[in-house]
């Protein structure tokens, strides 16, 4: 990327999809999505259930590869390089594009090992001290350090749901990604935990590009700068969050955000 082109009005595009189509067997789930994801911003994907938001998200780090019977078409670029190209290693891609899932899914290991796992397999730490530093800084960035610093050796699966989800965020931060994909990260959490994660997302924006799928329109309005509205595998409208919520151009978007369907 050329930094000089970057202006506050037009941030540079981190990820871009062009005519992205996807089929589960014979059933088409994405019907040609063109979306630009700006760097260091939070992009929210909204839309009714089954509209293809999560499927689209999974295309961005090729988690769709692991699903049987999926075929894709079109371009998905990260820093203008097509990630569907043969030359791109999917393991490295996923280190650059991390993911946080709907349900917190910590490994049934200690808090420390959960965070340290990624850096270990990618060789990010030369020794135990560096690994300790990565674990601490990741937990600090995820706002979890104060709560767990005394019990890094405890099983992660014994923590509360909100803590587990922040741990999962810390785990993806630990491998130094550029983009973090979040698939309804707060849907299994209570309002207080949700508020903490929303704050966290806002803080993380400075260092990472975030794409978040959410069913909660208020959440999209609170945390995102860009919002894309999906319906039945199509991208209906994408705009700055404020513009999209205040003056949607498409009538379908307006119906959805005003609660007339969805």
């Amino acid at each position: 990327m050329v930094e000089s082109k970057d202006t506050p009005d037009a941030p540079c595009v981190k990820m871009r999809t062009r005519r992205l189509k996807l089929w589960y067997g014979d059933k088409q789930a994405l019907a040609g999505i063109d979306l630009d994801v700006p760097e260091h911003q939070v992009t929210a994907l909204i839309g009714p259930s089954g509209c293809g938001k999560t499927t689209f998200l999974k295309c961005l780090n090729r988690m769709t590869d692991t699903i049987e019977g999926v075929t894709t078409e079109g371009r998905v670029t990260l820093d203008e390089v097509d990630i569907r190209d043969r030359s791109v290693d999917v393991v490295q891609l996923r280190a650059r594009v991390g993911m946080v899932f709907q349900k917190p899914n910590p490994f049934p290991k200690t808090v420390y090992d959960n965070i340290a796992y990624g850096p270990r397999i990618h060789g990010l730490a030369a020794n135990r001290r560096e690994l300790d530093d990565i674990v601490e800084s990741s937990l600090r960035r995820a706002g979890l350090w104060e709560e767990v610093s005394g019990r890094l050796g405890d099983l992660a699966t014994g923590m509360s749901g909100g803590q587990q989800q922040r741990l999962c965020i810390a785990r993806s931060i630990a491998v130094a990604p550029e983009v973090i994909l979040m698939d309804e990260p707060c849907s299994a959490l209570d309002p207080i935990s949700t508020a903490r994660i929303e704050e966290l997302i806002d803080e993380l924006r400075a260092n990472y590009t975030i794409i978040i799928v959410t069913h909660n329109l208020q959440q999209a309005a609170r945390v995102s700068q860009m919002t894309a509205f999906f319906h039945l595998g199509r991208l209906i409208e994408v705009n700055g969050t404020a513009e999209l919520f205040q003056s949607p151009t498409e009538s379908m978007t307006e119906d959805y955000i005003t609660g007339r369907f969805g």
Partner: protein
Amino acid sequence: MTDMAQPMTSIHQSDFSRARLRRRYARERNFKIMSVSALGLTGIFLVILLGSIVLNGWSGFLGTELRLEVTYSDEHIDVENPANGNFRMIILDALRERFPEATERREQRALLGIVSNQGIYDVREALLDNPSLAGGSLELWIPAATEVDMLNKGYVDRSAPEELRLIDDRTIAWVDAFDEAGDLATVFNWTFLVSGDSREPELAGVGGAVLGSFWILLVTFVVSFPTGVGAAVFMEEFAPKRRWVDVIEVNINNLAAVPSIVFGLLGLAVFLNVMHLPRSAPVVGGLTLALMTLPTIIITTRAALKGIPPSIKDAALSIGASPVQVVSHHLLPLAMPRILTGAIIGMARALGESAPLLMVGMVAFVVDLPSGPTDAATALPVQVFLWADSPERGFVEKTSAAIMVLLVFLIAMNGLAVYLRQRFEIRW
């Protein structure tokens, strides 16, 4: 219409409703009675089975010994070469001294028959351990012959007519004389646990069969565990889900149900006739049982891998773990308790298996303890089969005692499987 105005609870307090409730209680009571009686029946069968085995077998762990004062007289011992003495005569002299009335050759042979052949070796060993005994005498406890052992354990009916009895009146008198002098003792029969098979029931042991079973299981585990886990991991995680995987799956499930004798025939045809591996050797028995255990291990490993929530795999993939790392760092360690449980249960089944071993020649009469997987050996269930087939009264208790040893190993293995499952399995 007025009915509709009644409060809704009334329908649940009507006679009809009360009758329904009574029927439901009756049905629940009947179901409970049926379940408890089914469990009780199982328990009764188990008690009968174990009870008859233990009642028949406990005395197999005991042996009878006679105290003899043996004299290493110069006429029977070569002082230059003590190993070459006539130890049979030494024992006979000791017996004759006790019972001087036995003068005839036939009587003397009968007299010698009350001690086990092992006595000759015991007398010889005692001299070799301490050559200074030559010319002197020594008190020794010597194993009694199986007939005397049977008499001592009460398996001989003294009131039966002599000609129908295992042991004649004269011998009974000799044994009673030993007993009255306090020179007859019932002791724990270590020989039974440590030695190999023998033609003499009092000298026969399960040690050889236990060792044989150990070598067989070792070969079975080493061959079938890595192969089975590897095959299951490939089928579950790496193989494209195409039709041929389904075909293989059907075949594996089928193999798990194939009678074990068929695996024995396969082992005979392939390992003995084509590969010319040693006959009667644990390596062949182990390979044959490995073929039999393989489907079980594959099936349990696949089930264990399926039991791990996909979210763990997603989590590992999403931070950039390669497929091999996902398997080796997450799926296999998490599935291992259940895989091991399945493997141990498969091994326990292999331990109890006799039919395939008969086909690869492990039914031989083996006296020596096998010191490795290529030595001729037999296995515990085959030993049970061999002894059950023997006509001597002494082998009846040995058969049941060998079954008890087998059951102890089976209980230990199945207990270990339960322990592993309870201790290490992660619940989601």
